[in-house]
């Protein structure tokens, strides 16, 4: 038994070495793509003055939720600036944004297909269960082996963690169209396309929005953990502060994370409810 386990472990190691030796160009390309996306988003956030970002997010919160939440949002973001953590906050925001965009670009189409084809859904479920039950920092290990230390690794691991809720809830929303509306579509003589766009998709929107919100929250959690692999941002600030027992800094950074999480959570949640 022990021999078997040993040989299994050796196999896994070998595969990883083989990949780093032979498929390096692939992972280098992935790394450049991920870092390029991250740098682009970060550049946009950093080159704008802090009050511009605070006002834009405040306005978004005002439109989506209400006046008071809008003001609170702008003030809370200003507080992040006042704590001297603006650059880190924007790095975290850029990571979450970049990771969520990639995760949703994959998981929404996959979720829709899984909703339309129950077999695909059944095939995907064990994989999603596996992703969600493993401790999230597990994904940092293969990522760091293949992509190296830095934001690309953080993004790759975050994308993996952020995908399952969006896939699940999108699939659920597409699948659970009330039966009478399917009949209505058939009796009205709709085409397959019309059935999807005019009946299934509108009913799935609340569920899809809830999935987007959940993915965003998962991404936040992972982006902070990814501070260990040099992701930059508030996660790395906290990781550094823990190592030097700098309690004040770690609390400030935690407050900034809470602010950012709450702002994005509330805005996307109300977007889900609006529909």
């Amino acid at each position: 038994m022990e021999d078997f386990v040993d040989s299994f472990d050796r196999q896994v190691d070998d595969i990883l070495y083989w990949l780093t030796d032979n498929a390096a160009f692939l992972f280098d390309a992935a790394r450049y793509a991920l870092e390029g996306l991250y740098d682009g988003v970060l550049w946009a956030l950093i080159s704008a003055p802090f009050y511009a970002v605070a006002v834009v997010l405040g306005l978004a919160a005002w439109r989506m939720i209400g006046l008071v939440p809008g003001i609170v949002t702008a003030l809370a973001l200003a507080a992040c600036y006042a704590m001297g953590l603006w650059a880190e906050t924007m790095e975290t925001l850029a990571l979450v944004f970049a990771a969520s965009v990639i995760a949703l670009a994959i998981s929404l189409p996959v979720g829709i297909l899984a909703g339309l084809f129950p077999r695909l859904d059944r095939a995907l479920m064990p994989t999603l269960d596996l992703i969600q039950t493993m401790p999230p920092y597990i994904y940092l290990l293969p990522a760091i082996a293949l992509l190296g230390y830095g934001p690309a690794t953080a993004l790759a691991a975050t994308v993996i963690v952020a995908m399952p809720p969006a896939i699940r809830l999108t699939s659920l929303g597409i699948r659970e169209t009330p039966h009478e509306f399917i009949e209505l579509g058939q009796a009205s003589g709709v085409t397959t396309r019309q059935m999807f766009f005019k009946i299934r998709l509108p009913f799935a929107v609340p569920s899809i929005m809830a999935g987007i919100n959940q993915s965003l929250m998962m991404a936040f959690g992972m982006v902070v953990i990814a501070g260990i692999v040099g992701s930059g941002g508030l996660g790395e600030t906290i990781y550094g502060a823990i190592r030097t027992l700098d309690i004040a800094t770690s609390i400030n950074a935690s407050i900034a994370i809470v602010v950012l999480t709450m702002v994005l959570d509330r805005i996307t949640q109300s977007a889900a409810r609006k529909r």
Partner: protein
Amino acid sequence: MENAEVLIDCQSVWKVFGERNAEAIEAITAQGLSKRDILRDFGCVVGVSDASLQVHRGEIFCIMGLSGSGKSTLIRLLNRLIEPSLGTVLVKGQDISKMDAAALRRTRAEHIGMVFQSVALLPQRNVLENAAFGLEVQGIPRNERNRAAAAALAKVGLSDWTKHYPSELSGGMQQRVGLARALAADPEIILMDEPFSALDPLIRRQLQDEFRQLTKELGKSAVFITHDLDEAIRIGDRIAIMKDGALIQVGTAEDIVMNPADQYVADFVAGISRLHLIKAHSVMVPVVDWDGPVDDLPRCDPEADIDALIAQITETSADALAVQEDGRVVGVVSVRNLLLGVRGEAGTDPIGAEA
């Protein structure tokens, strides 16, 4: 009505749910097994067994049955929302089970409207957009379809509600939108799947009357499913009584009340008031069987119902009325015939035969 064009011709249609449906149908036809036997022996559920019916142009055809009688399955076979296990459904002479997907879509979109018990209004769309749905999926331009939808909404009295959302409407109003949606595409046939069952009695009665009037006015044909015999009698030109997937009797309300096909139908119609159902021609006896002078009797129309006849006979001193058609006396209705008619019995006995 009999001579009008047949729009829906349903010929020995079967629907048995389950993998062994072919064997089950064979067993029913060969051995006359019951619904329960089929479930036990074949694990199949009999939805519709050997149903044949014809719906003519301009006719309202009611299918009455209790829950589980297969009436909802039957109506879905008429536009192939459910595939028949056996048998043929012709819509305007075309076999719909042989149509390809495009032809079937066209038939459903242009010839057969459907109204559901659950109404099924799309909650994200306002009333006008809901009413225009059928035209929208046919690719009719927005202006044109909105005009047609607004006209259909006007017919059901909802012109002022076009910009509202379904959740803001009462149940009765929602069902009017459902009807307007079916009418907007101007189909010849409307399938009504228990449309008024969930409404309260007053609104239901109002919608029944409006529906019948509107359908007749527009010259549409309708197949109307209901579990309420009163509703079937109020709305239908002809009624089919359904039990355990089979049509056990098809006829006018008067036929069914006067000559129930079996005890089941007889029990059903027992509580139905005959006063407005039974007409003079059904209770009259031949002139030769009346042993008084006919010329002095007050005249009545063969289509006059018992209620009207009672009113007429009590206003005069006569014992009987002469039924006159095209200026000729075709029969006599006595007080005794009227009393028999109220009980649902035809006036076939000669007057005072047993006396």
